[in-house]
Structures are given as C-alpha cells and as structure tokens.
C-alpha cells in the first residue's frame, strides 16, 4: 500500500467563513497505480492534490490522516512536512510555464535546489532523463524563457521526479497543451511509472477521456466528496453514480454526428461549499433524487474495487 487517505478534511479560511473544499475523502492507492482524479472546477481535486504536498496559507487541515508507505504524513505542519517533499511526495504543478526562476540557468537552478536538499546532482542520471523526454542536454545551460512551452513542461517533469518520489501529483498538467502534446505527456508519465521513477501517481484533470488513457483507477469527486472510484474502464463504461453518468454522457463521442443528437451538459451548478446542503451534495441537480437523498449516502463497494456514494447505485 503506497498511499492511504482516511476521512481527509481540508477547509479554506475566508472572510465569510470556512469553505469545506475537501470534506471527508478516503481512498487508497497501491504501488504502481495511477489514479485519475476527475471532476468539475471547485470539486476539491486540486485541494486534495495540494493537501498531500503543501497547503497554502488559507488552507486548514481539519481532520483525517494520510499515510505514505506506512508512515504518517504531517500534512498540516508545513515545517515537519518538508523532509517528505520532493523525496517522498512530489508535484508537477499547473503552472509549468512559469515554474522555473526566470533569472537562473536551468542547470544551475536544479543544482542549487538539490544542494539545498543536501543531495548531490547525479549529472549522468539527469542527462539520461533529459534524453528520455527528448530534451537536448543543452537546456541546462539555458534560461527558462529560451524554452518553448512544451520543453518547459518536460523540464519540470524531469525536475519533479528527479529524486524518485514515492508519490507524484500531476495537477492539471495537460490543460494548456494541444492534443498531440497531451498524448506525449501522458505517455511520458506512464514511462516514468514503468521505469520506477515514481511508485504511484495522482493525475488530476477535468478531462475524463484523457484520464482514461493513463489511469488505472479513476476517482470522480463532487463538491468536496468522493462520488465514485473504480477501475478506469468501469467508470467509463459502467458508471454507477448519476453524476458520473451525466459527466460521461456529456462527452462527445468519436463517429457520432451531433447534428442529429444534441450534446447534453449537466444542468445547474455545484452547491456553495460555504454552507453545503445536508445529505447528498448532488441532490439538487440529480435526475434520480428522492427523499432518502436528504441523508448522506455512505461510500459503498458495489463490486470489487468499485466504490460509489449514492443511494441508488
């Protein structure tokens, strides 16, 4: 068992009160597993990713435990968390384009970063990994602005995984890329896992079809809670939660002419997390909602490895 998250609650402190962005999420991630984390904006997926490595100043760890390789991660304590960062948990951020210091040559920045963590640079290994992502070794002698967007992205991928972390969080890293580059990034990430650079991975995205190509398991979140978690093909082909079903059905399909068939979205908006509704958080938008939905549905394993939080599942 690589990662085990139990009943994790992380709230944002705002002037109007606490925003319950992550409200009791539990899941497990096995060695070598890639978990795709999907959902709308504001469903808590990025909050979950950030919680596992570095919370920002507004985030508050309210409850729950996170264990990585049998050791508890002190996620609420930013100082105690520091030894785990980069070596055990690492992140490829949303903002790869601006993640590197603009006034340092990349090679020097990497060296200074590793030095500050008390690790000496294994130049050969670094070169090997640059070759792997098809980056010229000369990029180390260049400044970030001399690289194209795709090159920066690959460079950040190499830096983030340089210390072979146990868990890698990839946060919306394909959102700004064109389709063919997205495919390349997904292939590279798979390669990183297969070569053992990272033990397991959480791939955060709002793009379910892309997740399907990469992830072994897909977890769908809604309004700070887990909606459904199952092996990729089960989520895509046999979704049980009404939210997942609507999410999948709103995706365009190859070969279908949408002149005849109108693409449907999900009507309505996610609830405010300042004061979320009692019971199932999807009840207001759910076509199947009934009286029982006023009570919160528990997460149930409906078949092997297929977890759903819905009374109708």
């Amino acid at each position: 068992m690589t990662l085990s998250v139990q009943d994790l609650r992380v709230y944002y402190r705002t002037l109007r009160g606490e925003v319950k962005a992550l409200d009791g999420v539990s899941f497990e991630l096995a060695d070598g597993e890639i978990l795709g984390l999907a959902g709308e904006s504001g469903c808590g997926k990025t909050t979950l990713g950030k919680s596992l490595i570095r919370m920002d100043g507004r985030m508050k760890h309210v409850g729950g435990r996170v264990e990585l390789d049998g050791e508890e991660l002190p996620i609420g304590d930013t100082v105690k968390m520091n030894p785990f960062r980069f070596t055990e948990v690492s992140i490829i951020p949303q903002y790869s384009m601006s993640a590197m210091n603009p006034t340092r040559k990349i090679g020097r920045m990497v060296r200074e970063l590793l030095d500050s963590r008390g690790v000496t640079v294994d130049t050969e290994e670094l070169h090997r990994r640059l070759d792997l992502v098809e980056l010229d070794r000369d990029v180390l002698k260049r400044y970030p602005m001399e690289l194209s967007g795709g090159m920066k992205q690959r460079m950040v991928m190499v830096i983030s995984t340089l210390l072979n972390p146990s868990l890698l969080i990839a946060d919306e890293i394909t959102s700004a890329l064109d389709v063919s580059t997205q495919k390349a990034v997904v292939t590279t990430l798979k390669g990183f896992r297969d070569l053992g650079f990272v033990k397991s991975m959480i791939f955060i995205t709002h793009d379910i079809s892309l997740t399907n190509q990469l992830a072994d398991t897909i977890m769908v979140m809604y309004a700070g809670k887990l909606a459904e978690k199952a092996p990729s093909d089960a989520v895509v082909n046999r979704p049980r939660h009404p939210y997942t079903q609507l999410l999948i059905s709103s995706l365009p399909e190859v070969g279908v002419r949408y002149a005849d068939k109108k693409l449907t979205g999900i009507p309505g908006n996610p609830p405010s997390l300042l004061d979320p509704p009692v019971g199932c958080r999807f009840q207001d938008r759910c076509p199947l909602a009934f009286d029982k939905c006023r009570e919160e549905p528990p997460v149930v394993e409906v078949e092997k490895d297929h977890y759903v939080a819905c009374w109708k599942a």
Partner: protein
Amino acid sequence: MRQYFGRKLFIYGLTFFVAVTVNWLIPRFMPGDPVASMVARASISQPEAVAAMQAYYTDLFGLDQSLISQYFNFWAALVTGDFGISIWAYPKPVADVILGAVPYTLGLMIPAILLSWLVGNWAGALAARRKLLDNTVLPVGYILTATPYMWIAILLCWGFGVVLGVLPVAGGYSFALQPSWSWEFIGSLAQHWVLPFASLFLVALGGWAIGMRNMIIYELEADYSNYLAALGAPHRLIRRYAFRNAVLPQITGLALQLGVLVAGALVTEIVFSYPGIGSLILKAIQNKDFFLIQGTFLFIVLGVLIANFIIDVVYVVVDPRTRAGMAGAST
C-alpha cells in the same frame, strides 16, 4: 550585442543633440539682458563708458552675432571643451566654476544614493513577510519617504546644529579655512558633510525599503517560489531567488536616481549652503549667467546619459531577458 549597443548609442547621441539645443535656447529666450546687468553692477554713470563696456561685453560673449551663428559657435566651442566664460564669476571660465562644484555634489550624492539604496533594499527584503519587522519597517519607511527633504534638513540643522551644537550647519567646510590637503581641512569637510548626507540618506531610505518589501512579497507569491516551496526548498533559497528578481525594478529606480545625481539636491544644498552644483544653478539663474546655466545643464544631461548607459550595461548582466531582447532586435 553590437547592434544593441549601437542602437543605444545612437539614441543617446540623438538625446544629447536635442538636449544641447534646448539647453542653448532656454537662456536666450529668458527675459532680461545679462550684459546690462553686468554693466549695472559696475555702477558707472558716464554714458560713453557704459556704451563701451556694453560693446565690449557683447563682443566678448558673442551676443552681437545672429542667433544661427551663435548656435553654431556654441557647438564649435563645445566640441573643443569650451563652455564659455561665466558672467557671474567673471572672468573665470564656466568649466572651472563647474569643476570646482562637482566634487562637493558627487561626494554628497553618490554615498547618499548608493547607501540608501543598499540599506533600503536590505531592510525591505528583510522585513517582507516577517510580521514583527514588517510592522516596524513599514511605518518608519512611510514616514521617512513622505518627509520633504528640506524639512528633514531643517530639522537636522536645528537638532544637531542649534540644540546639541555638535555639527556645523552651513558651508562645505569651515569659513575659517582655505581648501588644502591638510587633516584639519579634511576633518572640517567631513563634519560639514554629515548633516546634508543624513537628510538625503534618510528620505531616500524609506522609499527603497517600501519598494523592496512590496516587490519581495510579490516575488514570494510567484509560481517559481511556490514550486520551490512544494519541492521542499529552504526559505533561504526561495528568498534569495525572490531577492534577485525583486531587485531588477529597483535597479531601474537607482538608474533614474543616478541620473539626477549631478543636478544635486538643489534644495538641500541651499539649506546647508553647500557649495555644489545645486547652489551653482541657483546663482547662475539669479545672475542670468547664460553660459553657466548652459554649462551646468549640459553637465546634468551628460550625467543622465552616462548613468543610463551604465545601467543598460548592468541590466544586460543581471537580467537574462534583456539579452533575449538583444537577440530579437537583430532579426
């Protein structure tokens, strides 16, 4: 690289030409006749003598020629380093008068500007995101930077000169001494330097500290800082990077300051009767001394251009993005 500096030099050359022309124009279109005032100073009552003197001076300063030829003569003289003869300090050449004042201004301004920049940046960087320090540095900085130079100068004069009586409040050196290379003179020079320096230093300090504090906070919020923090880099490294990036706009600010350096702090020099360029400008204007006004302004223009050129070079060294701009310019 060559093209970049070539282009820069061309722009500086053009600026110089325009500045010199404007500089030549302004005193000539000022109301009042400098020759008449010089003659009046001699207080001669005989009309023939007055006429003779007027003719002599007009000829001497070349004011009887047409404006166009005055203009060309001006350029010709300039190329040979001849700024003309001062009317106020007649018959001393303008160049000598200016060179006499320059050491005082530079000796006052360079330490004041550079030290306030260094100390201000250091204090601001230290205070950013550190509650206790921030709560002290920020208000002190705001008070200092909002204080008018002359007001703090007068306050210092009163405090140290009048109440405590420990420091002299006027002149560049004791009026009892003649400039020489003796320890006594140098000591007197230093004593007279302290208060004007302090007034300039303190006011500038606040501005730099506030600017740096804000820039550092901005840089600590930048993506590269967040990325480093997520990878567990220590605060020291993140702050070092932030400082390096935050200092760039401060360097631009310093360049602007260095530009006005030769102009001196006019008001400060007047408050302390400090014999620098600032006092000189005042006297030149009061006496309608065309040549001295031209000379000092020309000196200021040169100073601004040279300072800016130096900063251009420094920027190329510290900010790799400017180097990219140079490459872009060549395509």
